[in-house]
């Protein structure tokens, strides 16, 4: 005989107890493995979605503007498409879908629509309620090379509506951006979209498959929006935007220099009027040159202008001009000059090509034909002016210094309109192209697949969350494991005594039991692998159904991972063994004779009493500190909660020990005596129920309610698909936007750089978060509450304009998004697309959870190409808010203006948080169920151990109801102690948090849950009693 034989005998002989232990370990291991599988599954599902939606697209070549479709040919397997954001309306139902991705595709993309057809993804078709053959209206932003927020940008007609017929469902759910929700996309014929947008032969996106990153060397200057005009003695470098950015200017200068060429920067602007001596010339072009003569305030007029103004050197000359300012308003400003020179219209002064091509102006035959995007008073135009235009076209009438011109008319888009390069060299174009990084001109390669796959790692580690959520379930399972193992040991006390009498040392016996435990832990963990798969599947099913609020998608499926299963199994073995070892420690103080008599140790209740009182004092100290704000509420909750539970359980342990020697009095006394017979068992049972109850009760107290503090006092918020350029707060802006007068309605317009949702609504890791920029007026009078800021200040919004050391851009984020989605800390730096940001303020539970906020000044510097306003907070009287919403949505329908209440927005975020709490509560309830199972097991064990006693009572005339009463009393006592302990401790622990946050308890549902647990316990008691009653009387009396 060997130890292994004895082990095998023990394992099989006590198979019932061992099976229970094994199941306990299997449950703990399965729950942990399953929880980890949830994380794997969410990540893998997100990854699957990225791969399915991108198809074989690995890279995207994209630009804000349009470029040649033929460029795609240089990238091998590539498909040119147009990708724009827009809206689709279904006139028949009156429904409209905003924020739809609209793709212009042809056969190279796959199954493409033809003629006037549009194909919709299933989700979008369902949203619109549209079926094949229905007429649909697609509206997209009309491309404009000229910045809308510049004088020459066309602001009155920024969108294009196309009437199409629904051809059916799109063949694939294509999406370039990682998103877990349904794809809302529409596909229209590429050629049709090109025609409608006035970009025939051009696209803004190329999908590239396979190979390395596409090489953009094939992109021409024209693809980058750069034009080189060949003039008589020079080349003129211009852009589609009519403005030359600083970066391009620097490249042009460098390129020219490399060939030994000269450059002359030029800024030409339209003056509404040139005034002097009481005379005025309307609508004249003025050019700013480095070589313009005169001092800073000097101006040179050509002879025609000087004559018309009757001006002579030294006279004061005024220029009146429009400036489109970033607040969405057209301002008329004036600048005074001193006439320095009068030059003949000859040579450089007769150059018609200083001005770039302004649509609606430079190609017109007369001033009366001008169609500029700003107000023009043609009554001011005189025949002489028409004559000048006819004879000299865009020849400037005045010249000023470049420095002064840039001071007056420089914009964020550029401070030059062209750069002259002389002498004209045939090599210059190639040199310039070589010097330019296409990314500087907005043409970039985006590794969409790699980025999507990286983002699919997720912002939230669901594995970690579900480990937390399942924690009490695991604890319950381990408590059950310990409980069953303890029962097994108690059952074998005499055996241990015999072994000791036979010469087995305590260490040897403990090793023997540990080996048994190890075998059970290993077997349990292996069984737990199957359990993990089942639990993982259940949790994933839960995420698809009951807890869909947390993930906003049904497209999550189980993806088993060997690593998680192994980790769950290993953790099961370790925790199972630890629990068993912890149970075995109790054996030490028992004498061999005690063991032979079947006794467990009987320690003094004093230690428990002392420990309980100490824990209670500490707990109440922490609660007091949390109430007074000296301790963080979360730390207060966890610290005080744990200590309260320890205090309550140890005090009850001491009570049970004391009662074991007290006199029996009535059913309650008898129940107490029975519970006190094995105080360890009873306390484990109470602990299990108390922990689960604590969890359930406290979780409900943290449920988010309709708190309106995060709305900042603004009842409404809006987003628009097309940017609003005009300020809707001014009469002119409202007129331009066609908004009727609305009493007491104020718009707070925010600039918006679209990007990844940084809130809990997005499962993907936001690599490129949305960025909002509030106007300066808002930051001065902001209403939102902050969780914290660095440095702490009365109005952290003002920190957005504070320069930071190292040049980081100050940013504000919602505290929840910052912590749980972006995984950043206050004051921490992070880099987005090459720019370093620093979080200087954290908003408390605000509606700004999807984005980062930076100052408007920084926004315009970092994202000069992002124009207008797309995000708005609206203040309106509560009683008219709904009417205002309807009116504005209708008036701004062409912009895709969508209003929602700020409370609804917050509720959307809270729904996710509450779903997490529901998950936590549901799994806590499962832990409670396990606790009840443990209770039933203890009860049955107690009843079996006392079957002789109960049989004796039967023999002396006790009836079933008497026995039931006896068993029930003990069970009810333990149940009540567990439920009361958990509930009271939870209520005390959450008190500080609730007093501040104003949470509430769902008393009815909680009461129902606790009543259900009570009913289950009572049912188990009755079943145990019945089992005893049905067992043969004499056999029980004879048995040992």
């Amino acid at each position, binding site marked *: 005989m*060997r130890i292994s034989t004895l082990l095998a005998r023990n394992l099989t002989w006590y198979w019932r107890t061992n099976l229970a232990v094994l199941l306990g370990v299997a449950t703990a291991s399965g729950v942990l493995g399953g929880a980890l599988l949830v994380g794997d599954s969410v990540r893998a599902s997100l990854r699957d979605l990225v791969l399915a939606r991108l198809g074989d697209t690995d890279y995207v070549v994209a630009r804000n503007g349009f470029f040649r479709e033929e460029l795609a040919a240089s990238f091998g397997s590539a498909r040119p498409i147009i990708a724009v954001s827009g809206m689709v309306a279904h006139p028949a139902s009156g429904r409209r879908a905003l924020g739809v991705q609209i793709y212009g595709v042809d056969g190279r993309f796959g199954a493409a629509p033809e003629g006037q057809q549009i194909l919709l993804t299933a989700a979008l078709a369902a949203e619109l309620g549209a079926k094949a053959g229905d007429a649909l209206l697609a509206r997209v932003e009309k491309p404009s090379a000229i910045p809308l927020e510049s004088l020459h940008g066309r602001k009155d007609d920024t969108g294009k509506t196309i009437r199409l017929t629904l051809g059916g469902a799109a063949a694939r759910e294509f999406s370039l951006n990682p998103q877990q929700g349904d794809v809302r996309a529409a596909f229209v014929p590429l050629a049709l979209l090109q025609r409608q947008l006035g970009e025939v032969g051009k696209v803004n996106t190329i999908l590239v498959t396979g190979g390395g990153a596409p090489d953009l060397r094939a992109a021409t200057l024209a693809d980058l929006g750069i034009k080189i005009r060949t003039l008589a003695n020079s080349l003129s470098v211009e852009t589609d935007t009519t403005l030359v950015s600083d970066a391009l200017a620097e490249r042009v200068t460098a390129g020219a220099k490399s060939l030994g060429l000269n450059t002359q920067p030029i800024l030409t602007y339209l003056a509404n009027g040139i005034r002097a001596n009481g005379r005025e010339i309307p609508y004249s072009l003025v050019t700013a040159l480095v070589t313009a003569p005169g001092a800073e305030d000097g101006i040179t007029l050509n002879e025609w202008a000087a004559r018309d103004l009757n001006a002579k050197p030294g006279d004061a000359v005024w220029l009146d001009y429009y400036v489109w300012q970033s607040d969405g308003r057209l301002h008329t400003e004036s600048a005074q000059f001193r006439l320095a020179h009068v030059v003949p219209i000859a040579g450089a002064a007769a150059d018609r090509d200083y001005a770039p091509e302004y649509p609606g102006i430079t190609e017109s035959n007369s001033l009366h034909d001008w169609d500029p995007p700003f107000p023009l008073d043609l009554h001011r135009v005189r025949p002489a002016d028409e004559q000048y235009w006819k004879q000299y076209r865009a020849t400037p009438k005045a010249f000023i210094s470049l420095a002064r011109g840039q001071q007056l008319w420089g914009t964020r888009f550029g401070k030059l309109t062209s750069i002259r390069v002389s002498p004209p060299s045939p090599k210059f174009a190639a040199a310039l192209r070589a010097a330019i990084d296409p990314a500087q001109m907005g043409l970039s390669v985006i590794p969409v697949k790699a980025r999507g796959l990286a983002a699919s790692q997720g912002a939230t580690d669901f594995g970690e969350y579900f480990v937390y959520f399942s924690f009490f379930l695991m604890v319950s399972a381990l408590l059950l494991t310990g409980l069953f193992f303890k029962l097994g040991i108690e059952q074998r006390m005499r055996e241990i005594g015999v*072994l000791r009498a*036979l*010469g087995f040392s*305590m260490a040897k016996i403990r090793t023997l039991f540990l080996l048994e435990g190890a075998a059970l832990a290993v077997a349990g963990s292996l069984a737990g692998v199957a359990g993990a798969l089942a639990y993982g599947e259940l949790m994933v099913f839960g995420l698809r159904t009951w807890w869909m609020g947390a993930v906003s998608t049904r497209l999550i499926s189980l993806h088993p991972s060997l690593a998680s299963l192994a980790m769950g199994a290993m953790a099961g073995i370790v925790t199972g063994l630890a629990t068993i070892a912890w149970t075995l420690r109790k054996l030490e103080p028992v004498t061999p004779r005690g063991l032979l008599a079947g006794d467990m140790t009987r320690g003094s209740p004093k230690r428990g009493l002392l420990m309980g009182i100490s824990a209670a004092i500490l707990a109440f100290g922490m609660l007091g500190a949390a109430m007074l704000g000296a301790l963080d509420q979360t730390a207060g909750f966890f610290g005080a909660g744990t200590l309260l539970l320890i205090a309550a359980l140890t005090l009850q342990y001491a009570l049970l020990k004391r009662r074991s020697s007290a006199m029996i009095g009535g059913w309650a006394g008898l129940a107490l005596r029975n519970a006190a017979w094995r105080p360890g068992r009873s306390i484990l049972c109470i602990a299990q129920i108390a922990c689960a109850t604590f969890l359930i009760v406290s979780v409900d107290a943290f449920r988010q309610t309709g708190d309106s503090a995060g709305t900042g006092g603004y009842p409404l918020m809006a987003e628009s698909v097309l940017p609003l350029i005009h300020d809707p707060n001014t009469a002119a802006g409202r007129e331009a936007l066609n908004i009727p007068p609305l009493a007491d309605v104020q718009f707070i317009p925010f600039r918006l750089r679209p990007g990844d949702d940084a809130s809990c609504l997005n499962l993907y890791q936001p690599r490129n978060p949305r960025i909002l920029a509030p106007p300066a007026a808002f930051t001065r009078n902001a209403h939102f509450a902050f969780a914290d800021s660095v440095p702490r200040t009365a109005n952290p919004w003002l920190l957005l304009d504070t320069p930071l050391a190292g040049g980081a851009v100050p940013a504000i984020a919602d505290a929840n998004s910052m912590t749980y989605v972006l995984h950043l800390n206050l004051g921490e730096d992070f880099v987005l697309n090459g720019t370093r940001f620093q979080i200087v303020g954290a908003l408390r539970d605000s509606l700004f959870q999807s984005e980062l906020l930076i100052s408007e000044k920084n926004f315009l510097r970092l994202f000069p190409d992002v124009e207008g306003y797309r995000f708005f907070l609206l203040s309106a009287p509560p009683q008219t808010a709904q009417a205002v919403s309807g009116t504005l949505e209708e008036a701004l329908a062409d912009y895709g203006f969508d209003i929602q209440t700020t409370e609804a927005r917050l509720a959307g975020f809270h729904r996710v948080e509450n779903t997490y709490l529901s998950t936590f509560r549901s799994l806590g309830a499962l832990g409670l169920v396990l606790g009840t199972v443990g209770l039933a097991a203890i009860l049955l064990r107690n009843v079996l151990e006392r079957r002789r006693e109960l049989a004796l009572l039967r023999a002396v005339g006790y009836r079933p109801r008497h026995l039931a009463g006896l068993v029930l009393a003990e069970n009810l006592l333990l149940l009540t102690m567990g439920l009361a302990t958990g509930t009271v401790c939870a209520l005390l622990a959450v008190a500080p948090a609730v007093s501040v946050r104003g949470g509430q308890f769902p008393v009815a549902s909680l009461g129902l849950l606790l009543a259900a647990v009570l009913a289950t316990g009572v049912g188990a008691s009755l079943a145990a009693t019945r089992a005893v009653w049905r067992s043969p009387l004499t056999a029980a009396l004879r048995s040992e």
Partner: protein
Amino acid sequence: MSQIAKEYPTPRGPLSILSGVSFSLRRGNAAAIMGPSGAGKSTLLYILGGLERASSGTVTLDGREPFALSEKELAAFRNQSIGFIFQDHCLLPQCSVLENVLAPTLVAKDAAGAVDRARDLLTQVGLGDRLEHRPAELSGGEKQRVALARALINKPLLLLCDEPTGNLDQASADVVAALLLDLHRRQESILIVVTHSAELAGRFPLRYELRNANLHPAGA
């Protein structure tokens, strides 16, 4: 055993069970200790076997004081030098008859030839044909014979029996008692039996009575 005393603490002060108990036995001696219930017979036996410490006094077996040993040494001492037989046999229900007898050899320093010896002992107690049976398949007397074989497997110097026939009918008790004495004689061990049974005690050459917390020669 010299000046052994044993007291138990109670709420009303210490309860003295044994007081100044002294006696000595030589190899080959067999003694029966009698006394009323609660007199401390089993306590005395457990102290002798190193299972329970005395409040004072010393126990010496073959020149060794068990309670001066460490826990590990004491366990080895019990394993090698002492054999126990309890009233209710205390067999391991999960093990076969042979395995029960072999159980002490699992922690013995030298277990060579243990299986043969176990078979031999079981044959000697008349259970040579029941090696693979489980305790539940045996009668009370058979179980006690297995316990006897188990107690002797490591050839202990001291064999301690706590009411070995207490649960047996007369015939079985006679068989067990005869075997006990026979095997004791063959092994030349020291045999101490505590019993209520005057008949069993009558088979022993040395008989003591435990009363008033001390040991007295029977009949004295």
